[in-house]
């Protein structure tokens, strides 16, 4: 073969060999020892908050800020606040480099240096976070708010974000159904409060209307809920920013319920029962058009959008028992995702998009849990006589749900309260509400 004798061929062949040798060179070089660490001991980050500098803030306001920040971060489970009495130096100004050794002795991993001041009609805070072990500043941020509580929650959000990498969820609100007795009648009202139970107020007060399934829009400015009367059911929209202005959505005849907003807030998805068969529909808030997504003899209900709006999770008993399914936003590619024993209900897609929270009923007991979107890695987070109605925190790390105790003898209703649990199931805590609480929904405060 003449081309084999060509000088170009030999030259290029040697070039190829050189390249191959270069490729293999790293393999022949000195191997560096590598050790894998795949176990650890979880320990919350210990945060130290020395005295707060203030200008235009009263001592009471500064103490309120401290108390709220400590409560927010302390209840998150990921951050512990170090007792101020254990600090050698309790004062730390914003531009001062801390004496890391003394904070280390106190057991601190991080230090918060905080300066509260007033400016241009708003309350302001400048914060600086230091890493004690790495001995360097981690973040410096300026925040402002109209109220002390909001400012404190924003400070907590900022610290939480910087130390865990996750967006904070402290400046947020919970919408829920409050239940109380008014004479002999049950009185169900829509209520809203800060995530920690503060600023509680009622949004509805109709005596003969039962309210169900309240849901925030993604921006938290509006909400929808189901109103049941003796004669009909309707889905109502409340404009929270303008103060309880209600609109009844024209969704036609039949029982309508389980409504949620789409992620962009332009439409809602809901279940409608026609002649005893429940199907899933969408309704455009701008054009008023309805669209039927499921056509099935089985009961299809509890729809919830994925955070990108591309998919919908819902419950259907088409396999014989209520199980969780997913489909595209136009109703195609229906897939069953839960295959475990028991009946599943109230699937809710996580804001992160990686998990679906659900309620499971098995052998007469209820449980709230999470699973991956393909149904794998199912994990029960809380179990009880009746635990139900999970809703994600806006950052997708914590779930809020309600837990109802059995009705005691001689009483008309059993106690029902709101609980939060994080996705690991480690940190469970209760929320204070004035009356029984059901069906919570969580959103950032606007």
């Amino acid at each position, binding site marked *: *073969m003449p*081309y*084999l004798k*060509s000088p*170009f*061929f030999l030259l*290029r*062949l040697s070039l*190829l060999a050189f*390249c*191959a040798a270069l*490729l*293999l060179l790293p*393999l*022949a070089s*000195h*191997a*560096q*020892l*590598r*050790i*894998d*660490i*795949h*176990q*650890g*001991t*979880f*320990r*919350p*980050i210990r945060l130290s908050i020395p005295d707060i500098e203030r200008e235009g803030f009263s001592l009471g306001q500064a103490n309120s800020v401290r108390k709220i920040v400590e409560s927010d971060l302390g209840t998150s489970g*990921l951050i512990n606040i170090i007792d101020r009495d254990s600090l050698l130096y309790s004062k730390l100004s914003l531009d001062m480099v801390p004496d890391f050794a003394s904070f280390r002795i106190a057991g601190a*991993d991080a230090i918060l240096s905080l300066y509260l001041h007033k400016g241009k009609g708003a309350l302001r805070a400048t914060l600086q976070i230091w*890493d004690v*072990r*790495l001995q360097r500043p*981690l973040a410096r941020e300026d925040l402002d708010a109209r109220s002390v509580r909001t400012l404190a929650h924003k400070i907590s959000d900022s610290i939480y*974000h910087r*130390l*865990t*990498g*996750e967006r904070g969820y402290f400046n947020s609100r919970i919408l829920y159904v409050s239940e109380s007795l008014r004479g002999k009648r049950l009185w169900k009202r829509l209520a809203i409060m800060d995530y920690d139970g503060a600023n509680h107020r009622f949004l509805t007060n109709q005596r003969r209307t039962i309210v169900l399934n309240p849901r925030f829009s993604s921006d938290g400015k509006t909400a929808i809920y189901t109103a049941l009367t003796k004669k009909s059911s309707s889905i109502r929209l409340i404009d929270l920013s303008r103060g309880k202005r209600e609109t009844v959505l024209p969704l036609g005849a039949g029982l309508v319920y389980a409504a949620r907003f789409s992620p962009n807030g332009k439409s809602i998805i809901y279940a409608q029962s026609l002649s005893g068969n429940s199907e899933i529909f969408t309704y455009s808030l701008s054009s008023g058009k309805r669209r039927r997504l499921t056509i099935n003899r089985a009961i299809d209900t509890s729809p919830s959008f994925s955070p990108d709006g591309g998919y919908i999770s819902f419950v259907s008993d088409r396999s014989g028992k209520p199980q969780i399914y997913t489909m595209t936003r136009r109703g195609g590619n229906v897939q069953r995702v839960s295959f475990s024993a028991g009946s599943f209900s109230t699937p809710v897609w996580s804001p*992160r998009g*990686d998990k679906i929270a659900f309620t499971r009923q098995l052998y007469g007991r209820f449980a709230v849990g999470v699973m991956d979107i393909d149904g794998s*890695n199912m994990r029960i987070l809380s179990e009880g006589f009746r635990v139900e109605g999970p809703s994600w925190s806006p950052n*997708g*790390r914590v779930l809020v749900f309600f837990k109802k105790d059995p009705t005691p003898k001689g009483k008309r209703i059993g106690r029902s309260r709101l609980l939060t649990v*994080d*996705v*690991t199931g*480690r940190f469970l805590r209760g929320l204070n509400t004035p009356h029984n609480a059901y069906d919570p929904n969580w959103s950032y405060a606007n």
Partner: protein
Amino acid sequence: MASLTDIFRSLSRPIGTRSLSELVVFSALCHLLAFLATSLTAWFFPRDFIPFPAGVEIVTEQQLQQRLSQHRTRPKEEVTLESAKPKEDKEKEEKEEKKEIKESPKKTALKKIASKKASPKKAIRKTTVKTNKKSPKSADKSTDSSDPIEDILASLEEETSSDDGQSSEPSFDASLEEALSEESPDSSEPQFLSSEQILTASELAAFRKHIFACWSPPIGAPSLENLVVDLDLTLDENAYVIEVRVIDRSRMSRDPFFRSAAESALRTLSDSACSPLKLPLGKYALWERTILRFDPRRLFGL
């Protein structure tokens, strides 16, 4: 579709004249070759193989015998033995030491081995093994009275010629290699690592157990598979961290979850409970530069 012959033929033509399909197939062929070469290399060499450690010389048995015979023909003063030193010979000893410094590293190495082998306790034991019936006292006498070098060399010969290989003492070959590697750092012949030059399973387990207590992994964070942090450590001889570097540092600025995971790993190393690291100090060369991989995936069963 270009055939293989066409591809080889195209090597002799300028790049501009090749067709696109030839270039694509040629590129694929190059990648395939590179992949095969990589796979073969990875399969052939053991995981902890270090190809060219400096200062190690291979000595065959024949070379060893030659060196031993050369050694035997040398004057007795060349090798000194601590236990057999008469007190009055101190001046002579100093002169010998000066001589030794001038000698070649290999000779010095041999002396070192001889001095190792001829430590009083070992010499006594060897004699006892050789003459089983001798009493300890007579053995002491024999070591004191006879020429220790001759005894040692005899015992060494016996050891090297014996085939049982079950002695609990380190073999002469190993000692020689060890000494030569210490004394002749310029030797460039390749040598595989002995088992003593890798971290044993128990050493690794002890190290990990030590670190586990100090590492607080990122719990509840999304996509744990993306939160594996590699740290490049430089350690001093006492296993204190001199320098530490996050290998994928650029990701810290764009991924807050990764940044938190990396900072958590860095805090682990600065934890006083985990400093210094629990590593075998005798194997410093092995862990002077180490990559620590903090991997939370198995922790949460992913």
